[in-house]
């Protein structure tokens, strides 16, 4: 663990930060190169991410690797400690894969949609956009650094600081570059996150006080196994869980997401829903469960109910939406329900499914938001009723949307299926009613995806859309990797599954529950022998 020679994770955090600094420091003459510079830095980060993954030993994915540790504020027990297990690595990779695509997709887009109608000539708008997009891209890079850091953080205090710090770039990405109601949306996003964050802060403090203290008192590894009274543990658990549930987002604290996604630029939503919200479920999995095993077991029945409600509620709300972006946001509420369900079902199958689901959902929702962004940019509206018959006009765009949509409805052959399947099959072993009710989400998903496709892409071509251009090469390049990954991981999920297998059993060991799915085989053989002896 300590034979680590190269600080891969720190490099991965620093590279995008340097990129952002460079973008902001650009002299005005060089600002027109802002875009290639931003994409360049994100590609370097991607390369570093891949190299980091290569030096990760997937045979030992349950152990945190690429570990770095330095004392930060020893007086308060705070360390800079990073490291990833298989799940963390997958989410770090998801972040570094999505960022270049988001930047590429935002290349020509005028991110300030509210101002689009009021700016003067096209050239004037271009100048403004050129200036503003530099800031936008810099914010994306800052967010990338924070996302990588939060998935790698092995110190609870560091995690908390990053958890809160992530809000700042997103706040600006929504509040400065969003739609007409962007300020309201940005503040709402902030308020909800802040509410969760403050409660979590109380939990962080309380946890430290319970823990061993000392100069490394905030290290996750030192806090696992802390002896606490039952009530204390449950209260601290709840403080963490609330913050994560808001972030995830779960019913009934999900309402910030549709508002934010409606107003945010598409690329922001990709990162927000695709990656950032995963911090919620990631936190549940890697902090709540190992740190508060008793409380996790105690709360699981209620959380499972909330998760199942999220699945159905999100899907039903998605069906009722008239705004494309809100719709995708609600589908995510439903999908996050599956992830939480998988985590708190406490079976090795369901936890692996949930871990994998985090990545697959990032790919599929990322693709959906990106493609919806292309649509909205063409139409200048995100109201579903403003579209119609586009398949005939833009067949490639329609095809990519359909594939992303099919992935959202977990069509077998696409990666989301594997994870959703593992979640429900694994959950069935622990909680049959929950698994069966959750399966209803499968039908609802078909309705919201295909109904949307029907309204946007089929029927007679609307005259005002007849000249809509199909995807450009740049746009194709931005979505093709996502669609490709969905297909590859759908038919051959082994590389990803290898990374989540060990962490899942590690987590279950920490929680201290009997894996309900592992006992199947024993039960079966026992019952067979019983039958035999009866005869």
């Amino acid at each position, binding site marked *: 663990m300590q034979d680590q020679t190269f600080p891969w994770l720190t490099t991965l955090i620093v590279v995008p930060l340097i990129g952002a600094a460079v973008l902001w420091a650009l002299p005005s003459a060089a600002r027109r190169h802002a875009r290639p510079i931003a994409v360049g830095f994100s590609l370097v980060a991607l390369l570093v991410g891949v190299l980091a993954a290569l030096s990760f030993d997937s045979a030992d994915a349950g152990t945190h690797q690429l570990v770095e540790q330095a004392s930060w504020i020893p007086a308060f027990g705070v360390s800079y400690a990073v490291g990833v297990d298989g799940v963390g690595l997958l989410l770090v990779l998801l972040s570094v894969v999505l960022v270049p695509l988001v930047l590429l997709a935002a290349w020509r887009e005028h991110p300030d949609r509210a101002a689009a109608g009021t700016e003067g000539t096209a050239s004037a708008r271009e100048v403004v956009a050129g200036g503003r997009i530099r800031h936008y891209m810099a914010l994306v890079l800052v967010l990338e650094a924070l996302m990588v850091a939060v998935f790698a953080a092995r110190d609870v205090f560091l995690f908390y600081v990053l958890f809160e710090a992530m809000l700042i770039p997103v706040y600006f990405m929504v509040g400065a570059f969003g739609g007409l109601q962007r*300020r309201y949306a940005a503040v709402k996003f902030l308020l909800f996150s802040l509410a969760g964050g403050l409660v979590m802060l109380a939990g962080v*403090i309380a946890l430290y006080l319970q823990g061993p203290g000392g100069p490394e008192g905030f290290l996750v590894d030192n806090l696992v196994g802390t002896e606490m009274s039952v009530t204390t543990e449950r209260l601290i658990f709840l403080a963490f869980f609330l913050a994560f549930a808001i972030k995830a987002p779960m019913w009934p604290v999900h309402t910030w997401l549709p508002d934010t996604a409606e107003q945010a630029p598409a690329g922001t939503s990709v990162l927000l829903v695709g990656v950032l919200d995963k911090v919620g479920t990631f936190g549940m999995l890697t902090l709540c469960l190992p740190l508060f095993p008793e409380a996790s077991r105690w709360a699981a029945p209620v959380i499972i109910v909330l998760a199942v409600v999220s699945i159905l509620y999100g899907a039903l709300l998605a069906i009722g939406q008239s705004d494309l972006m809100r719709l995708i946001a609600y589908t995510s509420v439903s999908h996050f329900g599956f992830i939480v369900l998988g985590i708190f079902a406490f079976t090795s199958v369901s936890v692996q499914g949930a871990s994998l689901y985090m990545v697959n959902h990032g790919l599929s929702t990322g693709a959906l938001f990106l493609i919806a962004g292309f649509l909205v940019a063409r139409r200048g509206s995100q109201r579903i009723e403003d579209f119609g018959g586009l398949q005939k006009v833009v067949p490639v765009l329609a095809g990519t949307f359909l594939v992303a949509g099919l992935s959202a409805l977990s069509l077998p052959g696409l990666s989301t299926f594997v994870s959703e399947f*593992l979640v429900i099959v694994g959950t069935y072993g622990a909680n049959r009613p929950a698994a069966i009710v959750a399966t209803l989400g499968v039908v609802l998903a078909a309705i919201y995806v295909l109904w949307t496709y029907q309204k946007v892409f089929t029927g007679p071509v609307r005259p005002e859309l007849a000249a809509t251009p199909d995807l450009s090469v740049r746009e194709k390049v931005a979505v093709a990797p996502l669609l490709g990954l969905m297909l590859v991981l759908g038919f051959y999920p082994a590389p990803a599954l290898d990374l989540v297998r060990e962490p899942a059993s590690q987590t279950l060991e920490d929680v201290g529950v009997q894996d309900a799915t592992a006992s199947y085989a024993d039960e079966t053989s026992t019952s067979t022998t019983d039958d035999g002896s009866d005869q």
Partner: protein
Amino acid sequence: MLTSALVSLPTATVGEAAIPATGVFTVAWLLVALPLLGAAVLLLGGRRTDRWGHWLGVLASGSAFLVGAVLMVATLSAPAAERVQDLHLFDWITAGSFELAAGLRIDPLSLSFVMLVTFVGTLIHVYSVSYMEHDASRRRFFAYLNLFVAAMLLLVLADSYVLLFVGWEGVGLASYLLIGFWNHSMPNAVAAKKAFVANRVGDLGLLVAIMILFGAFGATDFETVFSLAGGANEGLLTAAGLMLLLAACGKSAQFPLQAWLGDAMAGPTPVSALIHAATMVTAGVYLVVRSAPVYAGAPNALLVVAIIGAITLLFGAIVGCAKDDIKKTLAASTMSQIGYMMLAAGLGPIGYAFAIFHLVTHGFFKAGMFLGAGSVMHGMHDEVDMRRFGELRKYMKITWITFAAGWLAILGLPPFSGFWSKDKIIETAFATADGQGWQPWVFGTVALVGAGITAFYMSRLYFMTFHGTRRWTGTEGAPAAGQHAQNPHESPALMIWPMIILAVGSIALGGLLAIGDGFVHWLEPVVGHTEHHDPVLPIPVIMGATILLVLAGGFLAWRQYAASPVAVVPPRGSVLTRAARRDLYQDEVNEGLLMRPGQYLTRSLVYGDRQVVDGAATGLARLVASSGEVLRKLQNGYVRSYASTMVAGIVVLVAVVLAFRI
């Protein structure tokens, strides 16, 4: 480990145990890969492949047929005990105790489907080259057809329920894409979505069945599940059986999930022939027969299968009598014929082989008739209203004769194909395994009466289209308002030849497969050997009654639709006719029971989410976050104040730490 240990136990496996595939069988993956490759090339190649894409599609399907034929010959030359082979492809999903390899099962059952799908499929590919000639998107059409063939072959070849599910949803997707192929017309798009959603309701059943089976046996591959099913308790198997039946109902348009099939006729006619008549819609029957070892321990589930089959058989037949749209009549007929297959499958081991037998002969004659309908539409300006047909035998002789072959086959008159398979089903329906109680009488009578109704509506279709007086306006006269001037003509060779080949199959295939009970013995390694059960009535009586009813049905149709003039405007009809025209109010029922309440629920939730949930959560967030003062500043949008809040938070943290630790 566990698997291998248990396979050796004496179990209640119905057929032969599988052996690892060797030799020529190791290329079975090509069956799926070739059409899949075709689809990929055509979809990704874009317009560059427009000129030759359709021939690539034919080639992909045709080469899959050749591979299938090779495997077929190899299997036939192997001893019966070695005719069930499993081909391991790769480890697909390994997660904790869930271990699943992707693999194919090559056995007489899957090979029967492979031959049907690739042979009829290739013919329909060829037919489509001409039928879709003037469609700008012909390449895309062939891509979807290839995708369908690949998914269907995966469905029938899969060696586990999960991989089967991949094919199962894959054919659903292909069906969705093809029903909505002309989706610039909204009704077509709606029909496509309706089909997919109805199928998804069924798929939910398959998912739950997989959960139950995995929960019970810790595996989902056929080998393990089937070898352990013998020792499992009945309640569990019944639940699994019913869930599998739900899946079958969705895919095979069986009651109560039948409503999508009629609308699916919005797709191009070759699609109706291949997917919604010959192959995909019969996948439900495949699923039930494949799951024979599960149903072996669940007699009640099996009884429900038979009841559903019997209901659908009559449902489809009644609807078929009232439809004037030639394709929708054929669709109702398909539903009804699959009802026969379901009924046979529901009779258990004595019926499985006949269910598949009828499935194969039906695949030929129904595909042939659909292609015939397509040929008629091709010559009649896409007219589908049979009240606007008549006397077409004089204008399209080959279509007429090939269609007649299919008509005679579905009537079940000897020696045509349908006789050999359908008569066996009727006979077996009178002889349920225990031979007691109400079941043989009810199922037998339903099957018998169904044969008579089938004869009526199919003859009605046949006479209205090809005989009687012409009710269309030729080019010489002025057409009525809203009508095209018709110039009926025979279709080109590429369309004719597939029809002729299928007609030959409609005439001879049933008899050939029935020689020495050849087909039944062929399936024995899968469904097991069953002793003959005596029906509750003597066989000659059943056979005689069937033929009598069929002739009566045909005669009635002839009197009403060939010997007397047919009204161009449909008469008002009786209550039953009006109900049948509206598919016995299936859409109204679905709308009232599901759609309306669903819409109401969705709308109230959308309202409630804003007013109640958001209101409460926002309120709570405000409360938790801080005092109103801080909030007010936040709402002004100053991030500074947020940052200061965070700093304040950290200060508090530090203070507390200091206070308690130092």
